[in-house]
């Protein structure tokens, strides 16, 4: 059960990846541009998270659904994948629903 949360996130990322691949929207349209956009957005979100953590606003709970693997204090590995999903998903959606 400890990988449940991580798995759900990865399913989300894969789901978006399949839609991307199927319609040639982002990574399968322009790899460099996608990596740039997703990379920048992830960096922004990560900085945002780190500030929030250092201000004591949020912290990692202990849950039977998480791996417990920490990348930094109060920053679980799942968060990195979540931020990837949070950055990639709007790109795929935006590209899908832009009039084409």
């Amino acid at each position, binding site marked *: 059960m400890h990988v449940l949360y991580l798995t759900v996130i990865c399913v989300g990322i894969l789901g978006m990846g399949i839609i991307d691949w199927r319609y040639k929207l*982002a990574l399968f349209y322009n790899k460099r*541009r996608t990596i740039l956009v997703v990379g920048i957005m992830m960096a922004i979100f990560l900085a945002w998270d780190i500030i929030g953590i250092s*201000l004591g606003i949020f912290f990692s709970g202990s849950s039977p659904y998480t791996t417990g693997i920490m990348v930094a204090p109060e920053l679980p590995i799942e968060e990195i994948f979540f931020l990837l999903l949070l950055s990639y*998903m709007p790109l795929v959606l935006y590209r899908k629903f832009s009039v084409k």
Partner: protein
Amino acid sequence: MTMYVLLNLAVLAMLLILPVLMPVRLNWRGVWITFAIMLVATIVFDSLIIASKIVAYDMDLILGLYIGKAPIEDFAYMIAAALFVPYLWERFGKK
């Protein structure tokens, strides 16, 4: 009470200054649909994450307003994503 909301408003303001200073043509239909889908997803999944104690908040530092179980401040992340990702994409499309 308001630390989280101040942080999120500050970040949102910083992010949204760029499209004002360096505007780019966005496909607004795409943005709205993206926003709507991500809003629903956020309400559902943020609530699930909080209910299952995967993440926790210092109650003193949040407003105490919720949509579902998600603190209203959390929505700043998805608003940033729904607006800024399309902006970045279009911005890097300019030759």
